[in-house]
C-alpha cells in the first residue's frame, strides 16, 4: 500500500483514539473520582450522581466507547482498503 495512505489511515486512527480515550478518562477519573463530591449534590433516579457514575455509569460508557470504536474502525478499514476481506497489499 502507498506510504502516504498508510500514514493518513494511522493519523485518523490516532484521532479516534484521542477522542474516545478522553471520554474514557472523563467518565471514570473525572466523574467517578475527581468531581465525585460535586456531582453527589445532584440526584439521579435515587442515586447521588457521583456515586452512580462511580458504580454504574462509567461502566456503561466504557461499553459504548468500545462499540463505537469497532464501528468507526471497520468503516475506516474499508475506506482505506486495508480490511481483511480484500486481497494482499
Amino acid at each position, binding site marked *: *500500500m502507498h506510504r502516504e495512505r*498508510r500514514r493518513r*489511515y*494511522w493519523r485518523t*486512527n490516532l484521532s479516534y*483514539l484521542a477522542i*474516545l*480515550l478522553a471520554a*474514557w478518562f472523563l467518565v*471514570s*477519573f473525572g466523574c*467517578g*473520582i*475527581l468531581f*465525585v*463530591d460535586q456531582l*453527589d449534590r445532584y440526584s*439521579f*433516579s*435515587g*442515586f*447521588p450522581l*457521583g*456515586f*452512580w457514575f*462511580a*458504580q*454504574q455509569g*462509567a*461502566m*456503561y460508557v*466504557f*461499553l459504548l*466507547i*468500545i*462499540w463505537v*470504536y*469497532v464501528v468507526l*474502525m*471497520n468503516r475506516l*478499514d474499508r475506506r482505506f482498503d*486495508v*480490511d*481483511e476481506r*480484500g486481497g*494482499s*497489499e
Partner: protein
Amino acid sequence: MSVQAWTFVMVGLSFALYIGVAIWSRAGSTGEFYVAGGQVHPTVNGLATAADWMSAASFISMAGLISFMGRDGSVYLMGWTGGYVLLALCLAPYLRKFGKYTVPDFVGDRYYSQTARVVAVVCAIFVSFTYVAGQMRGVGIVFSRFLDVDITYGVLIGMGIVFFYAVLGGMKGITYTQVAQYCVLIFAYLVPVIFISLMVAGTPIPQLGFGSPVAGGDTFLLERLNQLSVELGFHRYTAGQKGTFDLFCMTAALMVGTAGLPHVLVRFYTVPRVSAARTSAGWALLFIVLLYATAPAVSAFARTNLLSTVADMPYDQAPTWFSTWEATGLIRFDDHNGDGRVQYLGPNAEGTNELWIDKDIMVLANPEIAQLPNWVIGLVAAGGLAAALSTAAGLLLVISTGVAHDLLKKTFRPDVSERTELRTARVAAGVAVLIAGYFGINPPGFVAEVVALAFGLAAASFFPVLMFGIFWKRMNREGAISGMLIGLGFTLAYIGYFKFFAPELNSPAHWWWGVSPEGAGTIGMVLNAAVAVGVALCTPPPPDHIQDFVDDIRVPRGAGVSHQLDA
C-alpha cells in the same frame, strides 16, 4: 431437599458439563494448544474472556469488599472494567495482527532481544502464579462450606478437573469449557440478586433496585443504608473515605494492570481476524459488565440486610446461617459486655464491636440471609467454583506456554520438535496445577496482598512496553529493557516494603504522596515510561526491519495468514 443435597446436584451437573466439553474439544497441535487454532468466533471468545477474567475475586469477594467500602469500592468496578477500553483500543487489534502465541513473543520480536523476552516470561509466570494461588483458595472455601468436605479434598477435586481439561485440551479445551463456565457463573450470580431485588425494592432489575425506595415505604434504599450505617458508627455508605489521589492511582493501576495481564491478552490471539479482536473485546466487556454492574447492587442489598438483621440481635435467636458460618470461622462473635446480644459497631460508635465478619462471605451467605430457596444456594456454590476454575485454567495455560514456548522453544532449544514442545507444555501445565494446589491447601497468609502485587507488576512491567511497541517506532531494545526493570523494581520494592517488611508503617502517613501499595503500579508505570523514553533517546534507534514490523502491525490486512506461517 437440603442445601447440601442441592449443592451436590448443582456442582456435580456443572462438573459433568465441563468434562464433556473437554473431551469434545481436545487439542492436537501446538497451534490448537496455544491459541485454539486461531479460529474462535469473536462472541465465543468474548464469553471465554469474561470467564477467564472473572475470578473467585470477582464472584466471591468483590461485592463483599464493596459492601464494606461503600462508594470507594468503585475502584474495583471502574478499574477492572476500564482496562478493557485500553485493551480494545490500544492493544488487542495490534497484538492479533502480530499473531504469534504469547505476550513475551511480542516483546521479544518487537525489541529484537532475548533478554527482553526472558524478562517478559519471568513477569508473566510470576503474575500468573500469584493469581492462581488465590483461585485454588476460593475453590477450597466453597467446598468446605457447602459440601462439608475437608478443604484438602476440595482443592484436590478442583485440581483434578482443571488438570483434565487444561492439560488435555490446552487453549482449545479451555476456551469451550470457559464458555460453559461463564453461563453457569452468570446465572448463579444473577438469580439470587433478582430474587432479592424483587423482595427489597419490588423490581427485578437490581441496577435500578438499589436506587429505588424500599418496598412498601418511601425511604430510598441507599438513604436507609446510610442511616443504618451512621447509627451503628460506620461511615455513610455513599460517601468516600480514601484520598482522591490514592483512589486515582489505585483505579489506574487496576485498569492498566487488567490491560497488561498475560492470560487476558493471550485470548485475543485466538480469534481469526483483527476486526474480530476488536469486536471480541466489546463482547467480553458486555459479558463482564453484566456481572460488574450487578455487583454494587448485591453489595448494597447485602449490607442493608446484614445491618438490619444482626444489629442488637439476641445471640440465642441468631438465624441458622449465622451459626453455620460461625462454625467455619468466617464469622466471629465475642460477647464483651456479656448481655447476650450482638453489638455490631463501627469505628465511630461508642462501645466495643463484638462481631467480626469476613468480607468474602457476603456473596455466598447472601441467599441464606435473604432466606432464598435451597437450590439457589447450591447454584451460587456452583457459580463460585466456575469462576475460580475458569480463571485458574487460563492462568495455567500462560504458565505452560511460558515454559514450553517462550523458554524451551524460543530461548534454549529452537530445534525442538513440535511433539516434544507439546509434551513439555502438557507437563508444565501439570506441574503448575500441582504447585497451585499446594498453595490452595496451604494458603500463604498473604494471598490478598499478592493479588495487589500481580496487578501492580502487570501495570508497571508490560503495559508501557506494549504501548510503546505499537505507538512509538523510535522505542528500542535498550529503552524497553531498562523501563521494564525499573518499573518492576520500584513496584516490587514499594509493595514489598509496606506489605512484608514494615507492615506496621502501612498507613497514609508513611506512603509516598499518599499512594497506597495497591496504587503503586501506577507510579511504577510512569517511572517505566519515563526511563524508557530517556534511555531510548540516548541510544541508537531500532533497525529498519523493526520499523517495518511496526508499520505492518498497524494495518489489519494480512492477519489471517500469520498463524499458518508459524504453525
